[in-house]
């Protein structure tokens, strides 16, 4: 069958099981947009290419399937660079297809030409510049394979316009041909046994759970392992939902804005059972002072993570889910199987006492009647139907979202962890809703973030993708303001945004959303209830929150995790 390269691309996506792509057409990608009309693949027309990238990420995070975005060359490709970098940091499988100028024009500074593969080399797992249409099915198959196996991540296919128009003989490859890419998935049996022994011997162990558990689909297996061991669990920002918050062994999030108990449990632990986490600086604080007495079991599918920050006593390369299952078996096998668990009651008691003494706290009944952002998130969480997905932007609202939302399921918390991309929430929420139309999707957003990507709400309205946005409007770039207050002697530099410019309600309405403004605590619950009733349109609730609120607890940048600042609620105790 003779078809064009463009047809081959679309057909390859169909063969790959793609049911939806996010994109925006333009010159170099025009040939690809023609066969899209006849394809069963749903195309969602975004308003900015960055949105297409984040939607693909949101889709991938909600479904554990790869998200796909198609954009044109040059400025479109550079617009999607942020999403690629974001997906690379957080190990999100997305496949981005960019148009490119014709092969004969490459290197001539042609109209809308950019060196896309060069620009994205260090923020993709791999990228391809296709030079001949006959390569297309093979490259598409390889691209999906690379994106979704091993440590997942973004890939990019750059497709010159003449290659799209070139005729080729259609085929679908049986297999991929990547001699340099063979990810290990099964843990080494001897290491598994060694890990099981350390787990049995540990008196003050902590499970340190990262996003890898979610990416590998290992949260069910994790529950079995944790219950078997009866050991406490912390879930990192990327790992929220991998283990249920309402489980009595869950201590919440560790790190810079984690709970006192999660941070301190790691500090005092004698064994960190690290599953799919990477000792990020926001978790460890000052590395030289991090968990000084802990031995480390480190399980990761990416060998380069083992020993990158902290040497592991037992490093295990493997798929986290498989390794968890192997660990469950190993705990009952041979000599280790004979051993009893050594975790002490004192450790459990200690953790419980910290939890009681130092819970997450905010002023629940402020005398001045101000609206606390933490209260808003708490109400959103309480009123949300089971399994609701929460997307988030980056900043204070993200931390409050992670702290005060109750996560009980994997793939229900979608945020930009590693890169910290402001404006992530709205497009990510849209992508998540496309992937999981059965679920309610809320986004918690800040006023700074909202202004970066709000235009995608037009996409949501036009494409009938109903998402709900809780906009915590404190009129500031709040996290930056918090740092200037705490570390720059309250010299506020370029952080004020104004509460009513723009008028968020009018703006949201102009984009086809239902919009509400909430200014008092009394209105929070009724308005959220109203929003939860609306299923056919997107909803924006602008909450005018107290601009003075800061995120606590906080480990100041550069300090060790022994120096947790608990905030004003604990002063004078």
């Amino acid at each position, binding site marked *: 069958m003779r078809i064009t390269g463009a047809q081959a691309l679309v057909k390859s996506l169909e063969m790959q099981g793609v049911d939806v792509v996010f994109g925006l057409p333009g010159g170099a990608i025009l040939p690809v947009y023609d066969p899209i009309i006849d394809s069963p693949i749903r195309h969602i027309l975004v308003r900015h290419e960055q949105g297409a990238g984040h939607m693909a990420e949101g889709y991938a995070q909600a479904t554990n399937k790869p998200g796909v975005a198609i954009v044109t060359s040059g400025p479109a490709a550079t617009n999607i660079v942020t999403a690629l970098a974001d997906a690379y940091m957080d190990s999100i499988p997305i496949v981005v297809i960019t148009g490119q100028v014709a092969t004969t024009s490459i290197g001539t500074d042609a109209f809308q030409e950019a060196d896309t593969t*060069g620009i994205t080399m260090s923020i993709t797992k791999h990228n391809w510049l296709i030079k001949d249409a006959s390569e297309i099915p093979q490259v598409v198959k390889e691209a999906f394979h690379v994106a979704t196996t091993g440590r997942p991540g973004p890939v990019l296919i750059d497709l010159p316009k003449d290659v799209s128009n070139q005729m080729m003989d259609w085929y679908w490859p049986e297999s991929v041909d990547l*001699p340099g890419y063979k990810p290990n998935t099964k843990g080494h049996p001897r290491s598994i046994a060694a890990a099981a022994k350390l787990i049995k011997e540990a008196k003050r162990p902590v499970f340190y759970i990262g996003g890898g558990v979610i990416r590998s689909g290992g949260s069910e297996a994790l529950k079995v392992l944790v219950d078997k061991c009866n050991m406490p669990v912390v879930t990192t920002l990327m790992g929220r939902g991998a283990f249920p918050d309402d489980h009595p062994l869950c201590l919440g999030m560790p790190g810079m804005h984690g709970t006192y108990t999660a941070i301190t449990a790691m500090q005092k632990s004698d064994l960190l059972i690290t599953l799919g986490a990477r000792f990020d600086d926001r978790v460890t604080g000052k590395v030289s002072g991090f968990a*000084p007495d802990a031995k480390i079991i480190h399980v990761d599918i990416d060998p380069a993570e083992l020993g990158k920050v902290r040497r592991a006593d037992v490093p295990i390369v493997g798929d986290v889910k498989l390794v968890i299952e192997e660990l469950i078996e190993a705990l009952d096998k041979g000599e280790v199987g004979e051993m009893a668990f050594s975790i002490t009651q004192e450790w459990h008691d200690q953790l419980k006492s910290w939890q009681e003494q130092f819970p997450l706290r905010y002023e629940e009944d402020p005398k001045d009647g101000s609206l606390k952002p933490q209260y808003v998130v708490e109400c959103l969480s309480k009123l949300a139907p089971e399994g609701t997905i929460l997307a988030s932007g980056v900043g204070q609202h993200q931390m409050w979202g992670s702290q005060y939302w109750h996560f009980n399921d994997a793939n229900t918390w979608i945020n930009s962890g590693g890169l910290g991309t402001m404006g992530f929430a709205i497009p990510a929420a849209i992508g998540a809703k496309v992937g999981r139309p059965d679920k309610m999707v809320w986004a918690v957003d800040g006023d700074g973030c909202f202004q970066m990507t709000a235009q995608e709400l037009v996409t949501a309205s036009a494409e009938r993708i109903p998402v709900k946005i809780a906009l915590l409007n404190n009129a500031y770039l709040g996290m930056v303001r918090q740092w200037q207050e705490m570390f720059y002697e309250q010299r506020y530099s370029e952080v004020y945004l104004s509460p009513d410019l723009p008028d968020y309600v009018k703006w949201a309405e102009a984009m086809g959303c239902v919009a509400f403004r909430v200014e008092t605590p009394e209105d929070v619950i009724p308005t959220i209830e109203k929003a939860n009733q609306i299923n056919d349109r997107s909803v924006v609730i602008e909450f005018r929150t107290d601009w003075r609120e800061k995120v606590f607890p906080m480990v100041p940048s550069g300090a060790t995790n022994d120096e947790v600042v608990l905030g004003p609620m604990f002063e004078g105790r």
Partner: protein
Amino acid sequence: MTNTPPNLIPMSMPGGKSATEIGYHVLSVLVENKAGVLARVAQLFSRRGYNIYSLAVAPTDDERFSRLTVVVDLESVTLEQITKQLHKLINVIKITEIDPRESVQQELLLAIVAADTQSRSQIMELAGIFGAKVIDVGLERLTLALADTPDRLDDFTDLIKVFGIIEVQRTGRVALTKLARPSNRGGMNKGKAS
């Protein structure tokens, strides 16, 4: 305040190795012979802040593959981290660390040396001792070529400096593992090129 944990990797001493082991290491990297592979390797080094001391690239006897010989400077990072990150490149097939004691290493040096009638014979004699070839002759200049170990090239350069070096160029290092000998059966296959 806090005791330094025993299993922490101090940045100044990569991998907790002794100072004598720190310095230059030679990596032999087998890569797919595809467009952009060198850029990927170079960008990885630059992006992660690793230093390349020298680099040589050429296709192997199997045209599907090329071999990069990279001399890396381990001032700031462990060799383990470099090889692991390199392995993550999809086009990288195999990485072998080449131990200087267990390998043969060569570089090529080309040098234009000032050589008037008086000094010419002395330079020729020196070239003879080192096994360098005269590959071009001018009225008052000679161009010499020497392929040898990096140390010998350093020595040779120091000696010819006396006569006045006009220009000198050195290639990156290439290296192969030493061949197995009857007394060294463990390394039978180490010398394979690809």
